[in-house]
């Protein structure tokens, strides 16, 4: 399990490193003391897990997550039960309080193991088992891509549909499309990317296009060009 430690205090990083000595399966591939360094390291090294201090100089931990192209499993580390953590759905995260208790660290690491996140290599694109970090005002989520039926383009932003939420993330749809596994996430037209696992029904539409009905009730039109691509892919 590849890990990156993100904390601005050297002693805090040392402390965590010492504690992690007891976990031979956790390999520390980088240490970062600032938000900028963290963003670069995570996107380049693609760790399985990051230990992220919420209070960083410059940008806070959430700021780091928002800018990542690739979202690893995150274990938050903070000195005090933070108001910032309340932004999260309780089940969606794990966090450790400083000074870190070894037993709690063990639990957190086991959670990461059980989370069955897709191991990530350079060539691989984001699949159903990968996460996206989504922040909408004060609320935050880690969303498994399998739970996202639909992405919608809104100018420089992309609207992420999941459960009953539709928050925006600061990414372009083209950028996102390049990073998603095209076998699952299909570009229906200029405005939408759909998750093919969520398709309920496909009907023929005008001009050789298709109309897709998703399990969440949304209906999305597939342009003629993309329709032939889909037919080819799925040999319909």
């Amino acid at each position, binding site marked *: 399990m590849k890990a990156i430690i993100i904390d*601005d*205090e*050297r*002693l*805090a990083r*040392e*402390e965590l490193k*010492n504690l992690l000595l007891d976990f031979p399966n956790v390999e520390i591939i980088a240490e970062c*003391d*600032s938000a*900028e360094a963290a963003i670069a390291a995570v996107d380049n090294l693609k760790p399985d897990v990051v230990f992220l201090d919420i*209070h960083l*100089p*410059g940008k806070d931990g959430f700021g780091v997550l928002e800018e990542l192209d690739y979202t690893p499993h995150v274990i938050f580390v903070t*000195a*005090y039960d933070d108001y910032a953590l309340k932004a999260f759905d309780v089940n969606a995260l794990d966090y450790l*309080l*400083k*000074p*870190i208790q070894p037993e709690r660290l063990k639990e957190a690491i086991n959670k990461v193991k059980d989370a069955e996140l897709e191991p990530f290599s350079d060539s691989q694109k984001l699949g159903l088992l990968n996460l996206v970090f989504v922040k909408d005002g004060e609320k935050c989520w880690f969303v498994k891509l399998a739970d996202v039926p639909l992405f919608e383009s809104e100018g420089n932003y992309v609207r992420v549909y999941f459960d009953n939420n539709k928050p925006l993330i600061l990414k372009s749809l083209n950028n996102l499309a390049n990073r998603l596994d095209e076998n699952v996430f299909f570009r229906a037209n200029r405005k939408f990317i759909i998750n093919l696992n969520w398709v309920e029904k496909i009907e023929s539409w005008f001009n050789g296009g298709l109309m897709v009905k998703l399990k969440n009730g949304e209906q999305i039109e597939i342009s003629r060009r993309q329709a032939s691509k889909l037919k080819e892919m799925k040999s319909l």
Partner: protein
Amino acid sequence: MLNKKKLYWFSQFFGWLIYIIFIGIFNILTGNKLSSELIYSLLSIYLIGLLTSHGFRLIIVKLNWMRFNILRLFPRILLGNLVSGIIVYFLKLVFIEIIILQSFEGIKFIDAFADIMNWTFIFLIWSLLYFLFHFITNYQKEEIKNLKWQAAKNEIELNKLKSQLNPHFIFNSMNSIRALINENPTLAKEAITQLSNVLRNSLLMGKQKLIPFNEEMKLVNDYLGLEKTRFEERLTIIKNINSTTENFLVPPLMIQTLVENGIKHGTSKLPNGGILEINSSMSNDKLMIVIYNCGVYHKNEKSETGFGIVNTVQRLKLLFGNKASFEIKNENGKVKTILIIPKETIL
């Protein structure tokens, strides 16, 4: 306000009603018959009393007699009552003697004097009740104001306690110390001593009203020692303490709070850290503390710090009235905090 008005009219209507009922009963007991003349006379007295006293009240309100103390109020009341008495005498003369009884036989000085004195006395009682009511309600208002002030004071004290023990600081320090135990046991021991001092002083000093400046600086030094351990080379501390300021009395934990804010918004927010500078000097017999930290002060930021600043200002006001001053501003790319404390408290 509406209730007070209602109460006034209620008292007026029933007060005068009771008065004429008594007069009526007295008349009947002394042998007068319950004639229509008697009833008309009583009704006239009722209206005359009601209107004259209400007129008197309008004058009280218009001239704002409520602002006077008793000594200045009393002669005015007496004069007002006498004038009211004279007015009632003449109104009675016109309405009762001339119009109703048609028994006017000229003015007899003795009777006139007795009647005017009688009515002056009645108005005196009226005034007594009126002003007594006002003084009681005002007194209650003052009492409520006092209680509110007390409550505010208690709240400030409580906030002071709350802001003293910053959990982020405590747990971050503990975490640093844990790491130091392996790396540098001597430094770890020192840090534990410093942390104990900070915790002990936070608990004990809070109970005192004022402490010598050098006592406060001992706490600040322990605090800064811990922050230095945590931030290492990212924190640079500069101290210019004038020896004449050492025994000056200051509110406990106030300077510590300001230093802590300086680090929280300076060093800890900057990837490359920054300085924290404390200066103390005497200026016009007052203690002047100037703290510089790196970073930018955002005036309208709603945060715990904003709360800390509000609390500092409130504490200064409670202890020193308007003689202390507190200012925080951006200057030459740094944040400058100026605290001026006078020798005397107002408590």
